[in-house]
């Protein structure tokens, strides 16, 4: 919730700041700046590059400041967990009314560091309330048993902590955290957690980068990073290729012939809304968890999308173009190859982009379920060992690859079908 509020605040501040700064420095005279009506005019809205950059930077900044990253200066960090030495003074009262003071020395340190506790001076510890020293890891809480503090006085109870009276189920706040008394009279100490995230939940960016460098050098679980990613890509490409070479001709047949359309329409319309992920269990039963299974799944994921794209590509041919081709002497085959196929290419390309996206998502999910190698396999294996940094690195790489595939497809589209949208 806090993070969301901070994010909204950054958004609003950046927006206001940017428009103030722009108003001061630049006066453009392009078409858009001369428009008096811009609200509601879609063509006047373009993606603001500055906003995109600030958006990415602010997500990065929030990530850094909530993980205590060393990439940003310390004053940008939100308060971290309590780390260091603390002492909890307590007083116990025996049934006869006598009291004794004890002290608990605590060293709270990061999980990666070792404790640094001086040994207690046992000779100075007189009375029935013992002194104790405690080695703690940040973000963790510890129970300090009453029997451990008062081993020789089974009837005595702890009556105050840090000079303030305490009763069972009561809480005492001290500068380094919270001391709670259980209903059995023991003490539980929870050092202040601050706002930062534990590395096990969200590692700092530099940890992820370091992990990326390490894994790209040494691999993870004896599989190199490159091998993991290229297995995923290979499955996507093979599945997509198979889905296309079956789906596109089938889509054409459905667009050109009533019998084909009638026959396959129920199948296609039924299978289209079934998410490929829902097929994983059946695919595993039928084909097992090896490559056949995954490639069949991706084949199915791509197939329906490509069938529908090709079918609507054929339906999209203007009848005047068909008439023109026939009256210029084209045969049916010439009409198909010279008019219908090129005319449907824009639709097929749009379908291919969607199919590639779906296949990429599906392959990762399929690898999460069962795989030896692959991007999904890598992150699910890492998550089992709570290697959150590998999980995050994997997610970022999966995102980058998915985005790159889409960019490449768009570039190919521009190059191969320059007439798209210009008919």
């Amino acid at each position, binding site marked *: 919730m806090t993070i969301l509020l901070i994010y909204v605040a950054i958004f609003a501040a950046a927006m206001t700041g940017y428009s103030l700064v722009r108003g001061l420095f630049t006066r453009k005279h392009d078409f858009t700046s001369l428009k008096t009506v811009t609200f509601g005019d879609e063509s006047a809205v373009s993606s603001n590059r500055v906003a995109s950059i600030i958006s990415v930077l602010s997500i990065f900044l929030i990530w850094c400041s909530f993980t205590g990253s060393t990439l940003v200066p310390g004053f940008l960090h939100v308060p971290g967990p309590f780390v260091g030495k603390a002492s909890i003074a307590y007083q116990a009262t025996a049934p006869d009314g006598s009291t004794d003071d004890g002290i608990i020395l605590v060293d709270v340190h990061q999980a990666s560091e070792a404790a640094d506790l001086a040994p207690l001076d046992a000779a100075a510890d007189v009375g029935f309330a013992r002194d104790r020293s405690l080695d703690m890891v940040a973000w963790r809480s510890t129970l300090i048993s009453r029997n451990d503090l008062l081993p020789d006085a089974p009837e005595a109870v702890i009556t105050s902590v840090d000079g303030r009276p305490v009763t069972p189920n009561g809480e005492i706040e001290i500068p380094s955290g919270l001391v709670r008394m259980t209903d059995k009279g023991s003490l539980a100490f929870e050092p202040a957690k601050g706002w930062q995230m534990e590395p096990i939940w969200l590692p700092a960016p530099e940890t992820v980068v370091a992990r990326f460098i390490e894994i790209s050098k040494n691999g993870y679980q004896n599989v190199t990073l490159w091998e993991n990613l290229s297995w995923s890509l290979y499955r996507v490409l093979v599945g997509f290729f198979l889905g296309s070479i079956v789906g596109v001709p089938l889509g054409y047949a459905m667009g050109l012939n009533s019998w084909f359309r009638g026959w396959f329409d129920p199948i296609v319309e039924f299978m289209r809304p079934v998410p490929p992920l829902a097929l994983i269990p059946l695919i595993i039963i039928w084909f097992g968890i090896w490559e056949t299974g995954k490639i069949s799944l991706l084949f199915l994921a791509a197939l329906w999308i490509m069938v529908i794209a090709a079918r609507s590509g054929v339906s999209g041919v*203007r009848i*005047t*173009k068909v*008439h*023109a*081709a*026939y*009256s*210029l*002497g*084209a*045969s049916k085959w*010439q009409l198909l190859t*010279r*008019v219908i196929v*090129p*005319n449907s*290419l824009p639709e097929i390309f749009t379908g291919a982009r969607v199919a590639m996206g779906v296949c990429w998502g599906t392959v990762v999910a399929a690898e999460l379920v069962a795989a030896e190698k692959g991007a999904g396999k890598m992150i699910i294996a890492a998550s089992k060992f709570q290697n959150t940094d590998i999980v995050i690195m994997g997610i970022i790489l999966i995102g980058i690859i998915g985005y790159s595939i889409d960019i490449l497809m768009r570039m190919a589209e521009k190059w191969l*079908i*320059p*007439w798209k949208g*210009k*008919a």
Partner: protein
Amino acid sequence: MSGLKIDNISMRFELPNGGSVQALQNVSLDIAKGELMSVLGPSGCGKTTLLNIVAGFLAPTSGRVELNGHVVTGPAAERGMVFQQGALFEWMSVRKNVSFGPDMKGMPKAQSREIVDHLLDTVGLRDFKDKAVYELSGGMQQRVALARCLANDPDVILMDEPLGALDALTREKMQGLVLKLWKETGKTIILITHSVEEALLLGERLVVMAPRPGRLHREYRLPFAEMGVNADLRQVKKHPDFASKREEILSMIWDMEEEIMGRTESVA
């Protein structure tokens, strides 16, 4: 026999609701080789249906179309068609569009190239041969459509409002071009139009059709097409005969429209 014979054509469309529409009723026309005929009529008079039957896209309910003695059964290269717009292949360059017909016949490249170059010069697109068609203006695209049709050397050219989507100035230029091409190539041309002026200018012979059922209404023999060849079309339009013919036909079509409106209103 040479020429186009439209022999007692009727066309009836069955509607999904069980009714039917008589789109054409007993239409007969003999069009001589090299004749330029324009067809005019209010909306719904069946002009486009007639043209589609001649092109072979539709089979008439009764009657038949003969070209040079054989019966028309489907579309063929002997009957070229120029559409209003959107019939060019935007995945091909201007040159490829024009050579589409020759390519379909398997004509050698060198030969088709010569034809295409000549035609594109004729329609005034010398400098646009390798452009993509979507880079051209509407008027230029229609020039490409004309050249593409002529490249196939058809016996008859069917034009379905080829200039309907153009602005007035471009349209007038294109009308001159149509007349010039007609005179130079000697093709038989049937041109459908909504514009009375265009029908008068681009018809040695003008057929006015009437709606419900679609049928021939009147026929004129006109001198304006001959006058307009390689001449200033505005001068032709100033001709007193032109003005009076225009008035006559306009009021004729006006009456037909009124009659339809009246009839629909009384039905309603």
